């Protein structure tokens, strides 16, 4: 299979998706995956992700093709939530299937770095004192530089 890129406006099940992805890539010896969840720490009561439809999905699909061109992977999975989420809910699942473990792990790492910085999501958190927009983090830029 090729890339599987989807946006969800309601909760998805990462384990189920990982199993399906593994089954869809029978020739790969390894599957690497990363699941990002809403952190319960820091007094966050809820999280809202806004995206801009005409850019978000094409951007994620372009990223998946970039991953496939850079690493020897047989499949790439990029799933992303939008809308209102509670602590503990999955936001993102990225997975890569490859013959060799290092390819799968690096593909996931690369996709996560670029997904966070290149894709069109705006995030705000609800705390006791109301909603706060989240700005880009310095760490994200540092992570990206590893690939240049």
């Amino acid at each position, binding site marked *: 299979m090729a890339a599987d890129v989807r946006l969800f406006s309601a909760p998805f099940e990462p384990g189920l998706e990982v199993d399906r992805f593994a089954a869809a890539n029978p020739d790969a010896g390894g599957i690497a995956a990363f699941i990002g969840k809403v952190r319960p720490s820091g007094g966050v009561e809820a999280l809202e992700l806004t995206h801009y439809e*005409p*850019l978000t999905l094409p951007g994620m699909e372009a990223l998946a093709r970039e991953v496939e061109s850079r690493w020897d992977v047989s499949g790439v999975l990029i799933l992303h939530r939008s809308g209102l989420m509670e602590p503990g809910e999955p936001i993102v699942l990225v997975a890569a299937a490859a013959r060799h473990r290092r390819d799968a792990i690096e593909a996931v790492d690369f996709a996560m770095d670029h997904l*966070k*910085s*290149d*894709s069109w*999501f*705006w995030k*705000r958190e609800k705390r006791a004192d109301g909603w706060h927009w989240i700005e*880009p983090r310095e760490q994200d830029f540092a992570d990206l530089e590893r690939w240049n």
Partner: protein
Amino acid sequence: MSLKLVFLGRLADAAQAPERAVETVPSIASLLAGLEPDLSAMLGAEKIKIAVNGKIVVDRAVFTLRDGDEVAFLPPVSGG
């Protein structure tokens, strides 16, 4: 005869709505000039990207707007 403006992220707060319809004008400069001064200054900042009908505008000085265009203002995306 209008343009549809879309404000993403914190820009929706500044514009007091996620979307707005305005009368069609030919350039991005004249579009910005017709908005409230505070909002205009915020939207015109270099770090705010502009997309017209889903494509990022590369050179906003020479871009021509057409009736019915959807003009989206995109602040830097959130880390996290």
